[in-house]
């Protein structure tokens, strides 16, 4: 699915990712945890193609393609989806029209005809239910005036509409109360399939109670310093990150 080798990336000349390796196979869910400033969100942004980030070394292969060379839109068209930590409000751009354009541009990229309008509306109806998104919200401007929880649900709704092969959730749990968290996680779980993988970036173990990962990685200082089964998340919740930090520092020495 995606293979990240020795990835180095900087923003404004400052190196954030310092040789990151990660291999995700179809159907797997990988959680990326780590203390503040370790590079979690940078990883998500770099994979999605945000231009502020410069990849200085390493390679990322996504479904056989060199991801780094693709524009942000082509990455999405190849099946990568980033659920934003802070979804942007875009006044005046209708959620539905924007999604229709996105779907049709993705279809065009794949050599398919535009989606049938009726089929599109049926899809909207179906996917809204997945995250219990109010029909009114789907028709409003993108995220405008949405609550924090609604914005996150809208992210998952969009993911459901675009049907990516790799979903990257960037701190999707931040700012969510427990009910909203459950709804969002349920939405994600319903999208799990043997062909679809997820990278779940999170600060807290809480989300992983709902979206159970196959692997948990600890990102620290721009590298993955520890990988374990889902129980690792519980251990981190209990013991914090300090023991990881000192282990990593000892290893570096």
């Amino acid at each position, binding site marked *: 699915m995606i293979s990240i080798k020795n990835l180095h990336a900087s923003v404004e000349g400052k190196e954030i990712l310092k040789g990151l390796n990660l291999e995700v196979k179809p159907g797997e869910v990988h959680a990326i945890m780590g203390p503040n400033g370790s590079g979690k969100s940078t990883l998500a942004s770099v994979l999605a193609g945000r231009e502020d980030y410069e990849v200085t070394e390493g390679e990322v292969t996504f479904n056989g393609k060199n991801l780094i060379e693709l*524009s*942000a*839109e082509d990455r999405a068209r190849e099946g990568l*989806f980033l659920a*934003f930590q802070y979804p*942007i409000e875009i006044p005046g*751009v209708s959620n539905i029209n924007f999604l229709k354009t996105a779907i049709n*541009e993705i279809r065009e990229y794949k050599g398919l005809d535009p989606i049938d309008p009726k089929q599109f509306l049926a899809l909207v109806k179906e996917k809204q239910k997945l995250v219990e998104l109010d029909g009114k919200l789907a028709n409003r401007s*993108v995220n405008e005036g949405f609550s924090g929880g609604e914005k996150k649900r809208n992210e998952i709704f969009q993911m459901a509409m675009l049907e990516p092969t790799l979903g990257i959730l960037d701190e999707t749990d931040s700012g969510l109360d427990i009910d909203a968290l459950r709804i969002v996680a349920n939405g994600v779980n319903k999208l799990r399939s043997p062909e679809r993988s997820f990278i779940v970036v999170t600060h807290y173990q809480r989300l992983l109670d709902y979206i159970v990962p196959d692997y948990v990685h600890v990102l620290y200082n721009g590298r993955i310093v520890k990988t374990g089964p889902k129980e690792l998340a519980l251990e981190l919740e209990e013991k914090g990150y300090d023991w990881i930090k000192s282990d990593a520092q000892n290893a570096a020495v």
Partner: protein
Amino acid sequence: MNVMTENKLTERILSGSEAKLVSLAGNASARKNALDEFRRMGVPTKRHEDYKYINPEGLFRLGEFMAKANVVRPVTSHDVEEMTIAPGAAKVVIVNGIFIPELSKLDRLPAGVTVKSIADAVVSDAIAKKYHSTIANDSSDAFIAWNTAMNESGVFIHIAKGATCNIPVHVVHIASNEAASTFHPRNLIVAEVDSSLNVIESFDSIGPVKTLTNVVTEVMVHKGAKLNHYRIQTEGDAAHQMNTTCVVAESGSNYCTYTFSFGGAWVRNNLNISFTQEHTESHLYGLYVTNGNRVVDNHTIVDHAIPNCMSNELYKGVVDGKSTAVFNGKIFVRRDAQKTNAYQTNRNILLSDDATVNTKPQLEIYADDVKCSHGTSTGRLDEDAMFYLRARGVGEASARKMLVRAFAEEVVNNVPDEAIKAYLDNRLNHLMS
């Protein structure tokens, strides 16, 4: 040295104008007085505060617009049809500043609405006589004085007390000439007490010849009247326009103005609104979309001379290529104008490194119990929004178009007439594809 040149330029225009003046009908002494005012003020230059960003002197220095021969390039009914904005509207066609009854379509106007050539109206109509040249002041601007001296025709629109005009009156201004020339259409709109009227003024040009349309429109909005006044400028690359609209609004009236500048090489809009009675309301909306080497300049003045009035202004611009956009919004709140509400916003998106925006909100407030605000911004498209859209698979060009459309749509959404709105949406689609 400079003064000499300026005077020479003014004299050159004057000599051309004086030669023509003798052939014009109407009140000769009024024309001569106006030309004297023009001589006194001279062609505005860069040193003139109100014209410093667009320098009309520069236009004239090129020697354009001076042709003596006014040879109309024929306009057909098909041409006029192509300029339709709201199907079903009454149409007044003004070619090169002259009212053309054969091309106009006025048979569907309801009772209480009078539309006729202003040249006739100032002779035969008591109301036209009463207001003509009283709202736009010759001594306030050289272009008004020039228009007063030189205008040959234009339209007088009158709606009677309590009348409602259920179809818009569309004034189709067309510049179409075989040689470079200047035209001076003069319009007067009078909305009587409690009347309701929609007026569209569109500006188009046909052909490659350079033209300058120096149009002056006077508007009288009586008590309780409701007037929506649209200005839709879609001229070609050879057309230049100096547009002055002066409005006096009385108590309880609501004058809404919508200015869409989508075309023309050089467009200057002076929009002056005076409140002369309490509880008057006015909304000013503007959208300019510029590219190439075009220049679009909107100067607005809202004069709150008396208490308890409300004005709200929203102008937005999408500025691309090497074009220049200017916005200057003056709001005067005079000493006695307590309880004034006056709001103004100007926002611009720059789509290119070579485009220029000069924006200047200018609030002069002499009363102390008022609510006034202004805001202005000029910037690029929001990078975060661009990334968000692209990260969903929307290509860069489509994402840009989506955001620009959304930005412009805020102005279009304030248009109450669905047909006009549809026309504008369609026009924007063409402009942005």
